[in-house]
């Protein structure tokens, strides 16, 4: 048994010395390609191939309505950059990302800090904050359509009770995106909350205890001990959140179909509208690759920032 120790070298390096193979075995054993194939086949078929196919389609005038497809070069891309609807829907996506990401990180942090402070009723708090995350998007939008109902919805009833004018939550162009962002914060903050809670629970308590012994008060220790220790977590949560927010589509599509007057239509809904309602698959692909490029740029920028943090 002991003669085989070299075989136990950590696998990630991947280069276990062949010479150490036990006598009588012709070659070093290990899981073969067959282990990977059941994943690799659907991976190539349903991910790699569509990515390539989509890129190709973006260079054609492919359409759901026409059978003939011809190569058009970069025409679709040229059209996309001159298309005011691309720019306005991109603007909506960026606006949504800004107004949803900030509260999604900050509220999650406040929730986690409060729950972590050890007040009784842990499971009640976790349940209230996390359960919305488990709801299908349609359930969330059904509930919030009712809350935002203009005449007897809870939102306007509350405003009325405070003596304020009713608001067109989903019908007022200047309000609708904020309403969508509020729904999104309610729906998904629970995930970030759990990430923060897990981070808090894994922090060493020694610094906190030392600061307490030195007479630092609760606020002081929060600002100078706990929050600095959460820095990496915050960067991570913010990175994931920005990428998730950029991909917004489902809740907006069900809630407002992008309205009123296109004021909530995100870029990905424009892709959907052009491709499946307007039948222009080639152009829709081009717009979605512009979006993909944006996602890659944001990811790489974030990665650089993250590395600098270390």
């Amino acid at each position, binding site marked *: 048994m002991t003669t085989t120790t070299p075989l136990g070298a950590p696998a990630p390096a991947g280069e276990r010395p062949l010479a150490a193979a*036990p006598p009588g075995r012709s070659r070093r054993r290990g899981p073969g*390609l067959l*282990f990977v194939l059941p994943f690799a086949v659907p991976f190539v078929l*349903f991910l790699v191939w569509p990515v390539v196919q989509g890129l190709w389609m973006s260079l054609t005038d492919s359409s759901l309505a026409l059978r003939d497809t011809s190569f058009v070069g970069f025409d679709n891309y040229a059209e996309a950059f001159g298309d005011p609807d691309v720019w306005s829907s991109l603007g909506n996506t960026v606006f949504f990302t800004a107004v949803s990401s900030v509260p999604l990180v900050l509220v999650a942090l406040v929730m986690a800090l409060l729950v972590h402070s*050890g007040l009784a009723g842990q499971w009640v708090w976790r349940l209230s904050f996390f359960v919305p995350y488990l709801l299908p998007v349609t359930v969330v939008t059904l509930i919030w359509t009712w809350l935002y109902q203009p005449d007897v919805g809870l939102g306007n009833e509350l405003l009325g009770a405070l003596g304020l004018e009713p608001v067109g939550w989903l019908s007022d162009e200047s309000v609708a995106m904020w309403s969508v962002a509020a729904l999104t914060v309610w729906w998904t903050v629970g995930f970030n909350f759990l*990430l923060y809670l897990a981070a808090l629970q894994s922090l060493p308590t020694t610094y906190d205890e030392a600061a307490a012994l030195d007479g630092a008060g609760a606020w002081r220790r929060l600002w100078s001990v706990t929050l600095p220790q959460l820095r990496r977590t915050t960067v991570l949560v913010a990175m994931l959140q920005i990428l998730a927010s950029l991909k917004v589509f489902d809740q907006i599509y069900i809630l407002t179909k992008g309205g009123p007057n296109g004021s909530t239509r995100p870029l990905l809904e424009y892709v959907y509208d052009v491709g499946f309602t307007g039948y222009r698959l080639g152009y829709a692909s081009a717009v979605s690759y512009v979006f993909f490029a944006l*996602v890659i740029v944001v990811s790489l920028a974030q990665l650089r920032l993250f590395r600098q943090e270390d």
Partner: protein
Amino acid sequence: MSTTATPVRTRRRPPRDSAGSPLLLGHGRLPRVLAGTALTVLAAVWLVPFLWAVATSLQSEQDVSKPGLSPFKGAFTLSAYEQILERGNVLLWAANSFLVAGLVTLITVAISTLAAYGFSRGTFRGRRVLMAVTVAAVMVPPQLLVVPLFEQMLTFNLVDTYAAVILPQVVAPMMVFILKRFFDGIPGELEDAARLDGASEVRVFWSVVLPLSRPIVAAVSIFVFIGAWNNFLWPFIVTNDPGLMTLPVGLATVKDAFGIQYAQAMASALLAALPLVVVFLLFQRRIVSSVATTGLGGS
């Protein structure tokens, strides 16, 4: 238990497992009261939409449309639920959701675990390239694939089939990545010992590796299931037949048909929400720790 004389006795220390830090609030009474108040207000804000929906679903449509802040404006009735269940769609869609999410989870976890183990321990050619492509694929937004995937399904004549709903969802590069990282971290001695004893590679995987990996496999399963249960865009695009729709898709198609029937809308929403909420109540601890284990992998 600490015996420090503080005004709020039993709240001083939570039971060990909740792992709160009593230090965070210090010994004063004020921070404790403030924190408790803030927590209560936040939880209330998060629960009110639910409670409001529950109250609405338990009244008649006429009572629901009366103005006023009171959650109950009339008599209690289950008629909204009766009407929803009579129509039958919701139950059918729930069954479809269970079928789809269950199969997606089963297949995804099986092929991802095998592949991750292969990537972690294998020495076959092309392993590094394939792994690198898999890691890069994590960046691809699923929405990017929708148009070409739909074309592909048209070509294969698979539109409006369970296969079309399920198959593209079983590719989860992030889960392969998470599992590989886990396998990389466990030592290979046990496996090599089993190999020396003549166990086949499949046997080694099944009897040695899998038992060691239960927590991570459970975590990945939970996330894949939640994701598949809630997935909207792809099933929405590839199914037109109401008999094949999953809950999120089916409800979206009838959302506008509810019109002003908010009691029924809320009843159907709550019925659709029920399964995962029950799952959460049953596996709360496991789900919470899953988020911590898989961290990046959640959404």
